[in-house]
């Protein structure tokens, strides 16, 4: 009988442990913000290894606004949405574009920024528009799961797709000519083109509707969502995004103005 | 069978472990004894063609053991060698240990080799173990198979390097019994051994090695009764210390 009692208590222990799911609605708890710290200057690390960038400042400002401490969780891109689903994080601020498919998994705040895709092409590939890329025999590098990936999947079906896990591998493929082009957001393409001007060309002609970035929260978490939307409106009207631009993106903004592009935070 | 050793020396890493040794006599049955480290095993390996001497020559019935690998190989094929332990091929059965060299070295057909192996195995009461690998045999059985393998091609000389040193006492007897049976068959052998009773009673001659030198050689009964050198006398008295008390 003693043995049965032991077995029973083990079962009880197991179920008790499983019952200890985090109660995330508790407003006393720190706000856990998930982002992939691999996308400077939005989400990155400073030289001391601490999270830094536009999204980090933005998240901290929001934490101040609602009076909760903010913890930044660095999570790989593939794991961001699952981190919301499993309660590891309360929200995602990771330059994430609002898409229909993502909306099935999470709820998005009002958009806070615009983004457009651009093309980084190998100099010898002869690519000067998106139509040059959508040809049999052309190969396009994308970062798995990004909007560039999604765009290529849906609109560049004539071209071959090379899905890679990080941005620098995508750029390397283009520089070495293993891939003809890399599709990513304008800013990243601009920066990488500047670094590899001898081997690449950048194509900034818009080829899709403007994408919008939003903050993602767990489905049904309207309480947090409402606060977020109120905060975004307030932050914008108080010039918060302009300050972030000045702090992190002054040079890029000048270049964008010269090229005649719409700036990230200028929502029409 | 006449064995001649002429100016034999062996040096390992600048240190002379053997010789110079000069020897010439007809071999019937010879026991080589001496303290450990006296060069007995080295000498036996040189006679067996497993080791090249640093200087000197080995002659068997007037024929010189070669100095290069291919002539040494031919020389070795006419000699049987039994190691202290672990000399059987571990992946072969007892029977294969005997037949494979017969087939691949001595040109036997498989049937001839099997017949020879079976005759030896049954004579020495090992037939029931013939299908086993060495790992499944007792130490005594392993050594008897090794002896059977060594004599199967009918070599002109059998060399045994301490064949019972690694055995439990009850197996020592069965191995020594087998060797003295071979003696009755007229098989000539040289044995390196610590079994003084066997050296004295079962071997015609005895050689005493001390610090790499051949100090004594002669008929065994005679030498055992009257050691010629203080080294041999001391060696014997040490070995027999406990036996004497019991006698």
């Amino acid at each position, binding site marked *: 009988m003693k043995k049965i009692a032991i077995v029973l208590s083990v079962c009880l222990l197991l*179920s008790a442990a499983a019952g200890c799911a985090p109660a995330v609605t508790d407003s006393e708890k720190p706000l856990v913000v998930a982002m992939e710290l691999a996308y400077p200057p939005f989400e990155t690390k400073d030289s001391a290894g601490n999270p830094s960038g536009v999204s980090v400042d933005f998240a901290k400002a929001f934490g101040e606004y609602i009076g909760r401490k903010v913890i930044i969780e660095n999570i790989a891109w593939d794991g961001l949405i*699952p981190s919301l689903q499993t309660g590891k994080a309360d929200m995602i601020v990771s330059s994430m574009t609002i898409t229909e498919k993502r909306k099935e998994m999470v709820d998005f705040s009002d958009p806070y920024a615009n983004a457009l895709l651009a093309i980084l092409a190998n100099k010898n590939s002869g690519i000067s528009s998106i139509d040059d890329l959508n040809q049999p025999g052309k190969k396009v590098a994308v970062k798995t799961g990004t909007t560039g990936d999604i765009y290529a999947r849906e609109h560049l079906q004539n071209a071959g797709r090379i*899905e890679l896990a990080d941005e620098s591998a995508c750029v390397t493929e283009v520089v070495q000519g*293993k891939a003809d082009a890399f599709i990513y957001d304008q800013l990243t393409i601009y920066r990488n083109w500047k670094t590899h001007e001898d081997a690449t060309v950048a194509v900034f002609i818009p080829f899709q509707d403007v994408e919008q970035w939003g903050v993602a929260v767990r489905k049904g978490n309207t309480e947090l969502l409402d606060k977020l939307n109120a905060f975004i409106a307030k932050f914008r009207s108080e010039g918060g995004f302009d300050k972030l631009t000045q702090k992190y993106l002054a040079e890029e903004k000048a270049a964008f103005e010269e090229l005649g592009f719409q700036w990230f935070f200028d929502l029409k | 069978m006449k064995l001649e050793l002429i100016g034999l020396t062996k040096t390992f890493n600048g240190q002379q472990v053997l010789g110079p040794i000069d020897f010439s006599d007809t071999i019937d049955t010879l026991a080589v004894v001496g303290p450990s480290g006296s060069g007995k095993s080295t000498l036996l390996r040189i006679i067996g063609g497993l080791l090249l001497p640093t200087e000197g020559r080995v002659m068997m019935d007037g024929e010189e053991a070669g100095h290069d690998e291919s002539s040494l190989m031919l020389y070795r094929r006419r000699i049987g060698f039994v190691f202290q332990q672990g000399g059987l*091929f571990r992946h072969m059965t007892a029977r294969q240990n005997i037949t494979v060299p017969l087939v691949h*070295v001595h040109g036997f057909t498989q049937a001839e080799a099997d017949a020879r192996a079976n005759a030896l195995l049954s004579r020495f009461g090992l037939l029931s173990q013939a299908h086993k690998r060495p790992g499944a045999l007792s130490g005594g059985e392993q050594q008897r198979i090794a002896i059977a393998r060594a004599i199967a091609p009918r070599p002109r000389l059998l060399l045994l390097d301490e064949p019972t040193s690694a055995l439990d006492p009850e197996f020592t007897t069965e191995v020594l019994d087998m060797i003295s049976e071979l003696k009755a068959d007229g098989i000539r052998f040289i044995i390196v051994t610590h079994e003084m009773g066997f050296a004295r009673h079962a071997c015609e001659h005895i050689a005493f090695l001390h610090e790499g030198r051949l100090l004594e050689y002669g008929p065994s009964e005679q030498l055992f009764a009257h050691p010629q050198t203080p080294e041999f006398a001391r060696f014997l008295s040490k070995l027999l210390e406990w036996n004497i008390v019991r006698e």
Partner: protein
Amino acid sequence: MKLRELFLQNRNEKALPLKAALNLLLLTVIIVAVFWLSLTAVGVTFDFSFVSEYRTRIGQGFLMTLLISLASFAVSLLLGVLSALGQGSRVLMLRYLCGFYVKFSRGTPLMMQIYLFFYIIGTAWGIDNRFVAGVLILSIFEGAYISEIIRGSLLSIEATQWEAAKAVGFSRSQTLRLVILPQMVTRTLPALTGQLASIIKDSSLLSWIAVIELTQTIREISADNFKLFECYFLLGLLYLALTLPVTLITKKLEKKFSYET
């Protein structure tokens, strides 16, 4: 019979089939229960409906992983044998080269080697085919381990075996063919099949250079449908389907060649 005897068995003793079955069943129930409770705790429900939609791609990825693993196994075996022999070579440069190769491959992460070989050496020498490059990179990495397996077993063959081969009159080639090789095969085979299981798992890292094998396929699918947990759960099952039979064969081989001890 006491209750405890149903669950205990002396070390080195096999349990009776019924007793083994009972314990295995109970263990399965516990594992499934823990897993299920964990899932409920984090509020994740599994939905595997996507599998049929993507079955062709999953099947192709599975085959690709199998193909890469077998090809790499063959090439790494060749590299391993050559490097093991090279480490014992009289040509000093060859000996050092093989030694350096083994130390480098075993001492650095596979991921770093994949990037280094593909983007620098592969590009420089014009190896642009991702399958070929992937197989080569994986073979070079695993070959170092196989080299050590082979060298270890060669060194473990006792000096007496070589000497006995000499004593019975075998030539150099007969010694290798009749004595050394058969013993090496029996000693290395279990470890080599174990290495095959490692190769299968390690091949997943080739997804970093977009070789469309099983892991890359699953990554692509999960990026498309966001069913990360289902996808990776399935991934684990599919790898087990490859590695478990290999492990069983290894066990069988170990048993078969246990005369060594």
